[in-house]
């Protein structure tokens, strides 16, 4: 007799229905010794890869299927019997999702499920936003290879039974039988221990007997264990936009929809033993797992008589000659070796497609640079996919591509190529090209699962539990921002928000918050990951429309795609790429053509700027944490910059590795290689990082060499480190690593250090090649800041918001570097900021708040036609809205036309409109009234911040300095003694509380001389939380700390700086 298997369960990817993660369901199924499990999520296969992976680990069979919502509102469970069935299921869901249909579902599913007949006719308030409404005709077209169950109370048969009686149920069953046949249709029975359910079960049993159809017992599982029931009830409320108190019989009557073992099911269906046995028999007929996905990467079209390997070789050598001139033997050897492996693995098409994409980008004038492990490949470099020369930097190709990179299940691990592009429209153009090249259904974006977390989860739970909006608002306001867990317990925070500690629902709130955290909430679109397929992608994975018009996404996220061997190309938008592209264009306009790959390498002034942390506005190394490390690490070559980029990451800091690396570089600590017992193995791997495990590649190579991990095992360790949704997966991988290390005779110190390093890299692992690609951008941006400051600053200001600092700070930094910041002006400013000279930047009209680009462009065109003779002339010729006229006048943009700001404000308020007869008659205003005095410098400053968000003049504090006699200027702090009590003040431009800083908070205050940084102890933060988070400007008293050129003030007292004349600035807070 075949053992019972659960063939109808739902995970949390049945959004707002299932209450357990796929992993939790699999773990419970394994604990109950079920040999197989089928997770049938509602209209999607989102969980399938995770179920498949977890089941493989747990040693049970993962069967594939889904519940499909029909146009009449009923829900049909379908199980995949073979690969044809899988293809059909994917196409069925895709077609139903992508075909626009009205949501005419009229059955209220939850009410039907609980058997409340009086609510069946209500309109479904829980109808999905993106309904999947399949028609019976579509079911019939995609029936082959699928097994249908009649479903639970939402199923078409039971639904017909409840609405119209046994005759209607029989008719519906006939309809299903006609589609699926007797072999592929089972009458499904579920027992929820509800009084009265046996009458319906008996009817279904009789119906099945009369038709000769098999009956099948399932659990109709919504959660792994009974503890999931409260979450399911909460989801029911969210689906129906109601509260637990008001939900009534829409809630589940009990906690019975959980996983059970065979014995429990046999006892439950003691009167129908055949129904339980049928589950095992049916499962044995299902012959499909995600191992047989049938995914194929598309070929690259080649001319007749040409082959993909041949074309790749031709393009590679053509590129090599561009990069190296005539390639020497070393380069040739490397290229030949790589090409041979690429051909052997069948990846030629992939490289050609990415090459073609990059070529297209360049032809379109789009700056593109590959990042990730592709930077290890010389072929990628010469094809123009990456910009870092791997031969020059000694990068290992095997870290990118090797024959051993195959997952546990045999899926190949495809090479990962990520392309960095200028954010915005250029990236969109490239995405559209990929869609077009693989139309109609060969390309899609990867999904991103939005999960319940933080304030959002609290808000939804609070509403469901009936807490008032005011309490939730207060709780949100009090929630500690930043990555680090809040120092206060949840209950304490609730108490602060006004919830009594003994509130009867406080315990439920706290418990549910923990259960809800991390569960998927809805499907989103990944920022740049694209999947392409040879053939139809909708036969590999269901597709559905994204929120963005015209976009289609697959139902799997990037991790799932990677696990199943589906190639993803990341088209990532980087603000700095846009800045570089524009800077290069601005330089070219001035007869100074430069490009990313022609920048002089190893430029001393560039490294000097990095060493003194003069990096505001540059890529990656501009943050407070980076600036605090730069003077200690003192980068002097590109590899140093790569280490610098990698060192300020949560992973390495958790691993306590920052200090050893810096100390070792500065000769303050001896260089050792993990442990003397493995010195000979670790030394070559860690030599460049002075014995410190800094990069993911080092971690993996050590694991392979020290623990003897095979390629597949190392690949699994790498994936586990990158998969944060299942900590158990990482624990298992680490367990295997430890065992392998011991089996190889490594001592405990080695096992411990390697384990710690792997843990610290989880989710934050930074590949060396990736770091080098970023280092190149960091170097390039620093070089431009040092050598082309005007063009660089103008471009930077044109792509805000980006990076760490706001425009006001960038402008002040530029001023400190000797740049002249020219005010916004209708006679000279363009929409963009421009470099008017090598040391002068003109503020662009884009910074005038409320001014439309269309109006600014019209102004530019009109000005080119003929200069404006007067303010009246300007207003007459440009179709500006009233608010735009005011904004320009208030920010002094009309100054060149002879009016001071107040006079301009007075003049623009007259009835200057196109249909104003006074204007057409040429009547000008008489003189400005005497009462309108020109603005004082302080008033101009306030107007600048109000209208532009910045000032091209002196920093606001310069004007107020005399009112702060006891406050140190930022630039004077180096003159102080270590430990001396100082006071700093200014607008807060940065608040950070990184997850790795043990609750410490970092504040940056800006003044007219620079930026002063303060460190706040968690206790002080807890005491002064509101002042710190709410006040735009602060006055901080504390002790000065000077270490290796890095200066901090250890805060002891924090007060608001309330100077009315000090304008509020935007701050980079808790991001």
């Amino acid at each position: 007799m075949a053992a019972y298997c659960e063939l109808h369960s739902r995970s949390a990817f049945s959004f707002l229905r299932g209450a357990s993660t796929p992993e939790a369901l699999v773990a419970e199924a394994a604990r109950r010794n079920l040999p197989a499990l089928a997770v049938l999520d509602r209209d999607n296969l989102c969980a399938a890869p995770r179920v498949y992976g977890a089941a493989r680990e747990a040693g049970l069979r993962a069967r594939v299927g889904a519940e499909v919502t029909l146009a009449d509102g009923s829900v049909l469970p379908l199980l995949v019997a073979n690969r044809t069935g899988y293809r059909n299921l994917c196409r069925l869901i895709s077609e139903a999702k992508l075909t626009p249909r009205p949501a005419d579902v009229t059955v209220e599913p939850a009410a039907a499920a609980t058997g409340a007949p009086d609510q069946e006719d209500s309109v479904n308030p829980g109808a999905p936003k993106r309904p999947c409404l399949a028609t019976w005709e579509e079911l019939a077209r995609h029936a082959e290879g699928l097994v249908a169950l009649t479903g639970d109370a939402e199923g078409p048969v039971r639904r017909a039974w409840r609405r119209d009686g046994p005759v209607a149920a029989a008719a519906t069953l006939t309809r299903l039988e006609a589609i699926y046949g007797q072999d592929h249709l089972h009458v499904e029975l579920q027992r929820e221990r509800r009084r009265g359910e046996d009458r319906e079960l008996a009817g279904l049993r009789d119906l099945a007997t009369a038709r000769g159809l098999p009956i099948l017992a399932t659990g109709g599982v919504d959660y792994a264990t009974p503890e999931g029931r409260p979450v399911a009830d909460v989801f029911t409320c969210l689906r129906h936009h109601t509260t637990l108190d008001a939900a009534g019989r829409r809630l589940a009557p009990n906690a019975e929809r959980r996983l059970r073992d065979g014995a429990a099911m046999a006892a439950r269906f003691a009167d129908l033993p055949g129904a339980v046995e049928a589950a095992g028999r049916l499962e044995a007929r299902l012959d499909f797992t995600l191992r047989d996905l049938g995914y194929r990467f598309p070929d690259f079209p080649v001319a007749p008589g040409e082959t993909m390997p041949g074309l790749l070789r031709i393009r590679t050598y053509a590129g090599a000659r561009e990069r190296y001139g005539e390639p020497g033997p070393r380069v040739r050897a490397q290229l030949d070796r790589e090409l041979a492996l690429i051909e052997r693995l069948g990846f030629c098409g992939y490289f050609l497609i990415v090459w073609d994409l990059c070529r297209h980008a360049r032809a379109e004038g789009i700056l593109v640079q590959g990042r990730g492990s592709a930077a290890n490949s010389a072929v990628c470099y010469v094809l123009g996919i990456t910009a870092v020369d791997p031969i020059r930097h000694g990068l290992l190709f095997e870290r990118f591509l090797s024959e051993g990179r195959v997952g546990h299940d045999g899926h190949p691990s495809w090479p990962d190529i990520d392309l960095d592009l200028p954010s915005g429209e250029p990236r969109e153009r490239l995405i559209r090209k990929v869609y077009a090249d693989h139309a109609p259904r060969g390309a899609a974006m990867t999904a991103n699962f939005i999960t319940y977390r933080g304030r959002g989860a609290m808000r939804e739970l609070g509403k469901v539990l009936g807490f008032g909006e005011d309490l939730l608002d207060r709780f949100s306001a009090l929630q500690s921002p930043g990555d680090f867990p809040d120092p206060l317990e949840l209950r304490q925070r609730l108490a602060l928000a006004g919830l009594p500690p003994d509130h009867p629902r406080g315990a439920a709130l706290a418990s549910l918050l923990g259960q809800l955290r991390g569960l998927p909430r809805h499907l989103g679109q990944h920022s740049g990951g694209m999947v392409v397929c040879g053939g139809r992608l909708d036969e590999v994975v269901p597709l559905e429309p994204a929120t963005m018009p015209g976009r289609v996404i697959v139902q799997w996220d990037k991790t799932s795609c990677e696990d199943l061997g589906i190639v993803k190309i990341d088209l990532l938008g980087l603000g700095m790429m846009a800045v570089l592209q524009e800077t290069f264009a601005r330089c070219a306009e001035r007869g100074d053509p430069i490009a990313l790959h022609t920048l002089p390498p190893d430029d001393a002034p560039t490294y000097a700027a990095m060493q003194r942390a003069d990096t505001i506005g540059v890529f990656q190394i501009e943050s407070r944490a980076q600036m605090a490390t730069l003077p200690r690490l003192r980068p002097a070559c590109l590899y140093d910059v790569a280490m610098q980029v990698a060192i300020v990451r949560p992973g390495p800091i958790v691993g306590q590795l920052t200090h050893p690396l810096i100390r070792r570089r500065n000769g303050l600590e001896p260089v050792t290689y993990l442990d003397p017992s493995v010195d000979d193995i670790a030394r070559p791997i860690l030599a460049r990082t002075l014995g410190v495990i800094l990069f993911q590649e080092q971690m993996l190579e050590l694991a392979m060499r020290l623990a003897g991990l095979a390629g597949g095992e190392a690949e699994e360790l790498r994936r586990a480190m990158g998969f944060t949704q299942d900590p158990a997966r990482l624990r298992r991988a680490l367990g295997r690593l430890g065992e392998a290390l011991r089996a190889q005779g490594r001592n405990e110190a080695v096992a411990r250090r390697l384990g710690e390093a792997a843990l610290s890299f989880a989710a934050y692992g930074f590949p060396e090649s990736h770091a080098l690609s970023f280092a190149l951008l960091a170097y390039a941006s620093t070089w431009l800041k040092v050598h082309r400051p005007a063009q660089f600053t103008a471009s930077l200001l044109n792509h805000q918001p980006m990076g760490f600092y706001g425009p006001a700070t960038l402008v002040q930094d530029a001023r400190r570097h000797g740049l002249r910041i020219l005010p916004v002006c209708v006679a000279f400013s363009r929409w963009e900021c421009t470099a008017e000279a090598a040391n002068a930047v003109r503020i662009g009209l884009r910074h005038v708040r409320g001014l439309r680009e269309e109006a600014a462009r019209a102004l530019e065109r009109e000005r080119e036609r003929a200069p404006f003779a007067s303010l009246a002339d300007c207003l007459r010729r440009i179709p500006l809205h009233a608010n735009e006229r005011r904004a320009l006048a208030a920010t002094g943009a009309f100054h060149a036309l002879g009016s001071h700001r107040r006079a301009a404000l007075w003049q623009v308020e007259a009835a200057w409109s196109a249909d104003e007869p006074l204007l057409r008659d040429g009547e000008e205003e008489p003189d400005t009234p005497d009462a309108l005095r020109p603005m004082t410098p302080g008033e101009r400053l306030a107007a600048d911040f109000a209208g532009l968000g910045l000032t091209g003049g002196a920093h606001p504090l310069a004007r107020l300095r005399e009112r702060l006699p006891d406050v140190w200027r930022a630039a004077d702090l180096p003159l102080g003694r270590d430990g001396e009590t100082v006071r700093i003040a200014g607008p807060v431009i940065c608040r950070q509380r990184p997850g790795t800083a043990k609750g410490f908070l970092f504040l940056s205050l800006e003044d007219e001389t620079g930026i002063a940084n303060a460190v706040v102890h968690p206790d002080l933060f807890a005491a002064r939380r509101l002042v710190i988070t709410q006040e735009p400007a602060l006055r901080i008293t504390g002790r000065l700390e000077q270490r290796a050129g890095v200066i901090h003030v250890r805060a002891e007292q924090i007060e608001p700086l309330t100077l009315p004349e000090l304008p509020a600035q935007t701050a980079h807070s808790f991001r």
Partner: protein
Amino acid sequence: MFAVLHVEAFALQAALRAGPPVAGTRPASLITGLGRQTALGECNRAARAAGLSAGMSFAQALARCPTLLLRPPDPAGEAEARAVLLAAALTLSPAVEDTATGCCTIDLRGTDPAGRRGAAEAAVRALAATDLEANAGAARTPRLAAYAARWAGQNALPGGFLAVEEEAALLAKLPVDYAEPTPAQAARLAGWGIHTLGELTALTAAGLTRRLGREGRELWDRARGGEPRPLRRHEPPVGFHATADHEAGVETLPALLPPLERHVERLALELQAAGLAAGGLELELRLEDGPAHRAHLRLPAPTASAAPLQRALETHLTGLRTAAPVRGWSLRVEAVRAPVRQQDFLSGGLRDPHAFTETLAQVAALVGAERVGTPVPTDTHRPDAAALSPPPGLLEEAPAAPGGVIGLPLRRFRPPLPARLTFAPTSGRPAHVWTERFSGPVAEARGPWCASGDWWEPARAWARVEWDVALAGGGLYRLLGEREAWFVEGEYD
């Protein structure tokens, strides 16, 4: 000549005086907006001194001023404060206009010019005695008088009073917001650097009209102080009464005293303005359960002072006990001209509560107030669940009966019979049932039926298991398992 009584941050003051006493130096602010739009509203002087202003977020306000007292708007309190303000104004002249929130204009024609300052200062003092901080101004026009009153308050002038003599000199220094520009007008004026009424009036009326339209011209006129105009006279209330409702029932009667005393202060002012006195008080206390408690309090002598009236109420309430919390009250003053009758030594201070109220209260005291009402079935999976609601009125339609239950009729045991059960080791089904009234082996069992709910609130959470069993000796019963105990809930017919 006109006078104006002006109460700055009126809504905040009204809310503060309606609540528990607050030290005048404590920073306080009103709450405005709903949900995420909530922010600070009117702020008192102490709050403004701490750097707070209207529109600021709570979080920032609490950052700057942790002792800040936040109050929601209190419409009833505002109505009461408005009545107090009008009563005070009526002590100056019968020609009073309820001009705006916190602002009363008084036409002083016909009053003794020599006594105007004294009368105005007395009115300000009277208002201060009721915890309303007001100021007074007197001038040629109502608007100028209002400007003067605000200026007197902002500059803490002696006596809280300013009579305008040099109009131009005053206007030159008054802030432009005195002329009540709209937000858009205020933004334009700020852009032009216009901060005072003097600067505003220095602009030409034509120029301003061209830019701000007709409303600009009106603003310009207001900035010049306006013109004398007839007042829209406020009619004094007929009778002297006060009423209030309490959202949460007041449990202890002394807690009623502060709000009652507030209203008595106003009634006293109204009596004084009308030249009358209180001969007695009619007090009605509306209780949570049952009809109201009413009492007539005789005063030893007619009076228009607040203190004797307050003492009479205090005495009455101290000796009174009601069976239910007080939901609201009404107070009516019996107005008289002079001492109209001799004190009645034989009148009792207390009357018995209404008989029905007392009876109902006694029932509630016996079974608990939460157990008094009409049972109504509730929407839940829990069998037999019901909630109590107040009995319907005579003309209300009775609630519909719950839907019919399919199945055999069940005769319930009330309370359910405690039972002991044994279960078959293999099937887990009941095998034997023992109760005090019957017992026997189970011939057949159906079930279990499981139901649970209200898990989110431990005190309400419930879970039950039911079996239907046929005993071998006859009888079909429903077994109920609840809180680890078994019962026989009933017998099927």
